[in-house]
């Protein structure tokens, strides 16, 4: 497995660039992962979404449905895609330190 470096932290990532140990996630890691998903600047709105995803994952062990995400954060569907052009499954989940979603994505 490849290693991902952000500052002085080094983490294992899978071949698709998702980190393998969600508990070692930090905001610095998130910022660095965001760059790999084409998001160079994480605004407060980005952080709100990323923190929501992370908390949901830590609680339930899966990524939330996009419906839950929009309902709980108040973001519109299109806003999510504007913030993370690669989409919530790959872009936002990766930044939030979730493992790669399963299935055809």
């Amino acid at each position, binding site marked *: 497995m490849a290693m991902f470096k952000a500052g002085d932290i080094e983490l294992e990532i899978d071949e698709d660039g998702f980190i393998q140990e969600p508990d070692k996630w930090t905001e610095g890691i998130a910022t660095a992962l965001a760059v790999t998903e084409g998001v160079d600047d994480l605004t407060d709105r980005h952080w709100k979404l990323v923190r929501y995803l992370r908390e949901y994952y830590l609680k339930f062990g899966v990524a939330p449905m996009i419906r839950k995400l929009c309902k709980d954060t108040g973001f519109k569907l299109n806003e999510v895609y504007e913030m993370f052009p690669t989409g919530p499954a790959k872009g936002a989940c990766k930044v939030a330190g979730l493992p*790669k979603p399963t299935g*055809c994505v």
Partner: protein
Amino acid sequence: MQAQERSYKSQKVIDRMAKKLNRQIAGSLAACVHCGNCTDSCHYVLANPGDPTYAPAYKADRIRRIFKRHFDWTGGVLPWWVKAGSVFTDQELEELKDVAFGKCTNCRRCSLNCPMGVDFAVVNRMTRGLLVSVGVMPAGVAVVSKDQWEIGNQMGVLKEDYVETIQWMSDELVEALGEPAAAIAIDKPGCEIMYTINPREAKYDPRTISDAAKIFHAAGESWTMPSEGWDMTNFGLFSGDDDLGGVVARRVYEKAIELGAKRVVMSECGHGYRSTRCEGPNWAGMDVPFPMESSVVTMLRYINEGRIKVDKTRNTTPVTYHDSCNNARSCGMFEEPREVLNLVVTDFREMYPNRAENYCCTGGGGAMSMSEYTPQRLKSAKVKADQLRATGAKVVVTSCHNCVDGLVDLIRHYKLDMKVTQLVNLVSDALVIEKRAAVPVTEIAAALVLAGRRILVVDDEPDVRTFLTAMLEDNGATVFAAADGNECLALARKERPDLITLDLSMPGMDGGKVFEAIRKDPELAKVRVCIITGKPELRKLIYERDVTPPEGYLDKPVSEETLLTNVRRILEITGEHKAH
């Protein structure tokens, strides 16, 4: 000589292989003459020219040797001559896994190009199935299969979450259109259509659900989405597990029967289409009493029958079309998506090779769920990247969710400036919403739809001129005909037609130059042009000219239905092209 001891799993694989050897598989295992034709047809080989282990014949030999050793008489008589062999250890099964799952997407391009009729993809799928039966598979395949077995869909979406998502899309659509009748009905009995989707639409990107709902509503369709049996994808196709395939397909069929739906329509998903429509009845051992179709076919029908109206000038970005292996190569759906594209975008450019010969998106066969093979997948995607780049298009359209993800991944990896979308999005964008129920089909046929229209037919072949003229005149148009470019320009200036149908390969001035001359003549600014050519490969040359692209582009031979639909749509487009 003491016989080598065989592991329990290896023995099981050999035992089960006996039951899997149907005529197609046995034929494919026996018939290979190692001619090498398959080699050049595989994108893995083309992207890794120095590595013979990617060659389809080489990959097939990993399982063929076992067949020769245990099931074919040649292996009993001359084992060394036919390279017969066997599996003994669990490690060898792991190596087989890396071939069957990691070095082939089951796209069947090699199968199509085999002079001996060897279908390597069925052999590879059987190999996957044998390995899965002893628990040897990539972790991603295991997780997804488990969700499909237990929860009923490949992303483990719970029923209440799914229903809430559909209601959400329904509410937003009703609000956007200001039309309560646009609501999505769940589990409504006795509908014409039960609409099934790919779970990624519900879980991550439901915009395709609302786009489809908008189209159904505009068409005045009687349709419903089921609360169960809504996942038409099927990991049984990827894992080679026919039992899983049967269970998943059966859920869709049984729900449609329960609801009394007259037809099942599947959203744009290649492997789902193939699994549910083509393979599923066999896996499930069921006679399916209703027709099943791709939403691409449904949308085309709506446009052809006049049930929805589309305005292609809303989609002007250059697009190309990627044929999914399952839709096109395995199920023969080539022309329908192109017919839809001709009606909903102004600038469609063919990709080469295309249709049955198109290259894999490189994410097929479940590859998107197997991270361990991502680096070799992306490396092999160079072939696809080159193919995409050569089109000059900014958008690639595909009727497959799996291809969407495969293409998005490689576009990012190879830094192509392209977006990926599906037909449902383009049709929805082009949709002209009118107040309910469009004109019934019978009335359209009765009226002379082209009455009052002036059309100039340009083609150097008299038969084609006669054919096109007859069809257009029968529908009420006043038709003029020209046999070459000069005659075309002279007649156009004299008669001022509403539309010119233009052939490209003509003696004298070729169609491309004629087209440009029409566009650059300010007197002909209102004339619309529909190219009708036997050389679709010239498409790019037309679209790359520095003038407004043609309003239509049809490939010969053209059917009466396609011609009339396109001519009618083109004439509905108002406005002048930009003067250059």
